[in-house]
């Protein structure tokens, strides 16, 4: 009989999550309470190398950032497909390798296309 993995085994992760969130909340509250407060107009102004700021920060930016991000997500998901494969690597044997080979060839074709198109080049 194999060890049964129950949701209650994940309780340490809950504790870790609580500690992480609690640390951030505590430091934020503590710095707010302990630090000095000077609320003049000059102090509250956003500082940018001494130059007076113009407009606001919400300007539409280049689609190139989005292109890089969406390609990142695609390869991120691809790597997640490799986790269950790597865990069962020995059991799956040659079939598993052939399977992953077909998968990777199709993905690397896409990668070659991206490189050839210059999608990752920053003009």
């Amino acid at each position, binding site marked *: 009989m*194999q060890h*049964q*993995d*129950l*949701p*209650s085994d*994940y309780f340490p992760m809950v504790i870790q999550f609580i500690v992480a969130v609690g640390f951030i909340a505590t430091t934020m509250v503590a710095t707010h309470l302990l630090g000095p407060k000077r609320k003049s107009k000059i102090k509250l102004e956003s500082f940018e190398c001494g130059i007076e700021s113009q407009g*606001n920060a*919400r*300007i*539409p*930016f280049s*689609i*190139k*950032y*989005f*292109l890089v*991000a*969406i*390609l*990142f*997500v*695609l390869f*991120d*998901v*691809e790597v*997640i*497909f490799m*986790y*269950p*494969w790597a*865990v*069962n690597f020995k*059991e*799956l044997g040659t*079939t*598993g390798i052939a*399977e992953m080979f*077909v*998968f990777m060839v*199709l*993905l690397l*074709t*896409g*990668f070659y*296309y*991206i490189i050839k*198109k*210059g*999608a990752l080049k920053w*003009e």
Partner: protein
Amino acid sequence: MTLSIFYFLSFLAILSALMVVVSKNPIHSVLYLIITFFAIAGHYVLLNAQFLAAVHVIVYAGAIMVLFLYVIMMLNLNAEVEPHKSVWLKSAATVAGGTLMVVLVGALRTSASVGSPLPADANIGLIKTLGKTLYKDFMLPFEISSILFLAAMVGAVMLGKKETK
């Protein structure tokens, strides 16, 4: 214990999902959506789908939300230029949403209960079991998913890349 965690996570998920819709600032909507995703990942752990929970946090709360932020920043949503919908449009949206809710409640009321939330084999959602099923029984869908990736890559490059000659 499990039941109270379930109720807490459900409360958190529904509350933050409502805040996604209600909050005026789109950036706040994205942050509330991240809380919703974490709550749903907690539900996956309760349902013995541990690998799915981890993937959900990595892909959805990590990567997809960055994309959402990018889209919001590209849309240039300022408070001044926020389009105000007319009363007609608002009431039409309320009627449409209410109809959908009535249909969903009606469908769920008559459906049979699924029984115990925990499957007989508690190891069913672990990465090893999932890998065996994915790479033996669902070999073809796995290979087809790589074609889906290829299509997504080509589509993204076609739409996002300016043609230079």
